[in-house]
């Protein structure tokens, strides 16, 4: 899969590496600032309140 993506990248090697790193960085930033914060409140060990709801 990743090999296939790598082969699909255009340009010479340095350009490919730059593209791959940029995409990787974008994914990591998306995870850290969008996906993980959205998931975080639903984690069991982040429930610290006492409440009649189960959360």
């Amino acid at each position, binding site marked *: 899969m990743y090999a296939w993506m790598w082969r699909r990248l255009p340009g010479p090697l340095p350009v490919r590496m730059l593209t791959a790193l940029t995409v990787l960085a974008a994914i990591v930033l998306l*995870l850290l600032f969008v996906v*993980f914060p959205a998931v*975080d409140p639903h984690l069991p*060990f*982040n429930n*610290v309140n*006492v409440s*009649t709801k*189960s959360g």
Partner: protein
Amino acid sequence: MTAEPGTTPRPGGASATSPEPGASLRARPGHVAVAIGVLGELMMTAGVIVLLFVGYELWITGIFTAQAQHRLEQQLAQQWSAPAPAGPPHPAGSPPSVDVVPLGSALAVIRAPRLGRHWHWVVDEGVAPDDLAKGPGHYPKTALPGGVGNFVLSGHRTTHGAPFYGVDSFKAGDAIVVETRDTWFVYRVTGESIVDPSDIGVTFPVPEHAGQQPTQRLITLTTCNPRYSASQRLIVHGVLATSEPKSQGIPPALQTGKA
């Protein structure tokens, strides 16, 4: 059927297409091998994402919380340097009352020598996830610092800076000092208990006795127990021992470093 210029003609309806020229020259893995390879790569990716998430929870949420604490500290400094809002004068002999603040705003600073000399957190109003991501939160509608009734705080145990990580180490008599605009409220720990997550009785003005009129000035901390779990809640109970005007300097409970 005529194909538009620039597009390759496709046989209508037929799914079979001739292999690209040259593709047959290379030995191609079978469908099963390709599927297993893709599955393996996806699973490795999932593993890396899970590890990244663990790192996010344990460390990066702490960075965000530290930034939020810094903002809350500035907010408190502003609030406390501004002249006190006009209100009815408080009766002589009792500490000045504390004003209600909007959800998410800084309310007070909490310190506890047992948890370390530098352990101090700005408490903000509210116990929603956003409020607790900034630091310990005050259950709205429970008593305010120093008030008659139950001043109830909630805090994370393992993530978001983990303000309440070490609250299990409290011993009876330990000081929990709450700083407000004018006053140091020194509470003393009376005990700890482990309860069911649905046990809201611990937040009542008279704990476990709904509807009763409070006479004591209590503090209650709630957090999850055991660490990294949510099956129970750890509750720290305390009662107000003294309240000292900040004009008299740092209270003895904080000076000695030991309670």
